[in-house]
């Protein structure tokens, strides 16, 4: 049985708290009332206390710190720590970010403890129990979920959906939770490496012309390089073009690429998968051209054209003289 309340799992990397931690505080507000109002934020880190103040945002009742034996994130340690937290604190709802680190351990916790579970949710609310919304068929549809028969539900929340609560805006007390984590690590950290170093810095560009798998063919790239040049734009791409080796890492927009915030983002032939949106949704103006009227990119675009990108590109060349 649960003691109710929401448990939020904050996330830090290389000594920095990640934004999603504070977004989760906002997400928790949507359901806190339904589960008794208590919102605890847990931080797992070698020096967990250092984030205690920051995560204690307005609306947070308590900050829990768990000291990890490893310097960096380690999936098995984190798994054990979260299991321990849930066993001790018995929350009704657990929220974590749908991040790369989470991908390595959160589902395992849900599996082992038999929790209610959904990943990458974009909305949570309470209706006699937790409810969540997430994408289906590659985000072309939405699915509404409930979690019958589960006393605890673990959700990973899509980053960038909820506004981040201001850091340190509350006055929650911090409490250390002792969990024996020695010997739980099963991987060994070797190093961090930056793979997206390249000729251009797309994060500095004011105007990005971004192309995706819709361009079909490596042969077509020069055409868009040319168009970008004509247009005074910097060329960026979605991941498949990098995976195929057609463009360097440094040009990739998205979760595993660069996060950009240009004045104008013109997306040609990009479907708008969540990991892509993660990198560009906060651009000032998003214009999308796609033949598929159901493409998720239209969900974030300010202007959208259901059209063939090649025809539009040809006309753009013409219009630019």
């Amino acid at each position: 049985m649960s003691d109710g309340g929401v448990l939020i799992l904050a996330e830090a990397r290389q000594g920095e708290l990640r934004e999603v931690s504070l977004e989760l505080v906002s997400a928790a507000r949507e359901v806190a009332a339904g589960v008794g109002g208590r919102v605890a934020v847990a931080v797992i880190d070698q020096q967990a206390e250092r984030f205690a103040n920051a995560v204690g945002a307005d609306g947070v009742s308590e900050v829990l710190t768990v000291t990890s034996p490893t310097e960096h994130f380690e999936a098995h340690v984190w798994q054990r720590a979260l299991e321990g937290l849930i066993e001790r604190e018995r929350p009704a709802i657990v929220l974590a970010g749908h991040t790369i680190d989470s991908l390595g351990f959160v589902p395992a916790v849900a599996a082992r403890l038999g929790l209610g579970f959904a990943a990458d949710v974009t909305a949570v609310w309470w209706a006699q129990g937790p409810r969540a919304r997430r994408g289906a068929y590659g985000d072309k549809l939405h699915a509404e979920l409930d979690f019958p028969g589960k006393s605890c539900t673990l959700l990973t929340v899509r980053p960038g959906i909820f506004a981040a609560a201001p850091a340190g805006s509350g006055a929650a007390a911090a409490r250390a939770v002792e969990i024996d984590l020695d010997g739980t690590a099963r991987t060994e950290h070797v190093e961090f490496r930056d793979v997206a170093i390249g000729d251009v810095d797309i994060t500095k560009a004011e105007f990005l012309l971004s192309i995706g798998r819709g361009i079909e063919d490596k042969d077509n790239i020069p055409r868009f390089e040319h168009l970008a040049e004509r247009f005074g734009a910097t060329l960026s791409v979605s991941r498949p073009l990098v995976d195929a080796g057609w463009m360097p890492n440094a040009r990739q927009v998205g979760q595993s690429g660069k996060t950009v915030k240009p004045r104008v983002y013109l997306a040609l032939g990009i479907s708008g998968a969540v990991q892509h949106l993660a990198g560009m949704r906060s651009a000032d103006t998003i214009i999308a051209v796609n033949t598929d009227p159901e493409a998720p990119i239209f969900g974030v675009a300010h202007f959208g054209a259901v059209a063939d990108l090649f025809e539009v590109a040809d006309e753009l060349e013409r219009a630019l003289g």
Partner: protein
Amino acid sequence: MKFVVCVKQVASLDEEFELLEGGGVDSDFVEWELNEWDTFSLEAALALRESGEGEGGEVVAVTVGEQEAEEALLACLARGADRAVRVWDESLQGADPLAVARVLAAVVERESPDLVFCGVQSSDAVTGSTGTALAGYLDMARVAVVTALSYDAPSSTLTVDRELESGLVEVVRIGLPALLTIQTGINEPRYATLRAIKQAREKPLVTYGLEDVGLDAGAVGVAAGAHTIELQTPERGAGAQLLDGSPAEVAARIVEIVQERMSG
């Protein structure tokens, strides 16, 4: 070495699809194919087996899915997997990642492989959870979102690149047995010729029901993490203003918008 590769036959929706009464999608508008991420994870297993290190290993492809999912398994067999296993039960219709992982765990346990490969995610469900949940059930060491791997036979350890956000990569070492979820771009998946696909029909492909792997609908139902109430078409482009007209008109509008926003 023995490898299990968990794969999924994924659905992609036509540009103009229709929803059925009761929430499903009219199957006329759905196309099926082997999940993109799984083509990379299968290739990773095959490549490791063919490299000196994993030589002579067996590659077993496993899926949880209906009859049509055999296509995905055939695609794996055609590329070089030795055997394939499909598990299905009507109760698995619409199963969530935890339920699927529970079933996979039962199969993997029987196979007791040295390495389990999964794709990071499937392109239709996009939960990114099945592989890690499977590792959870099996209490197996794992690394998620792997973009490079090399195996050192004497120490039975893998050194892998774990892809993080924003172009960052963490290099970690992990001992066997282990489970990896594989990211796109890690390799170049090979092509399976139609002849190979036809010949793949000669390779062993077994179909199990739940009881064959020591489970029943009840156990899987308990494992399930969520229940879908309904599917909806999202309101699209609530904010997006539609540019219509001929390509020339669209282009003219785009130029206009860009000029306005860039100067403002």
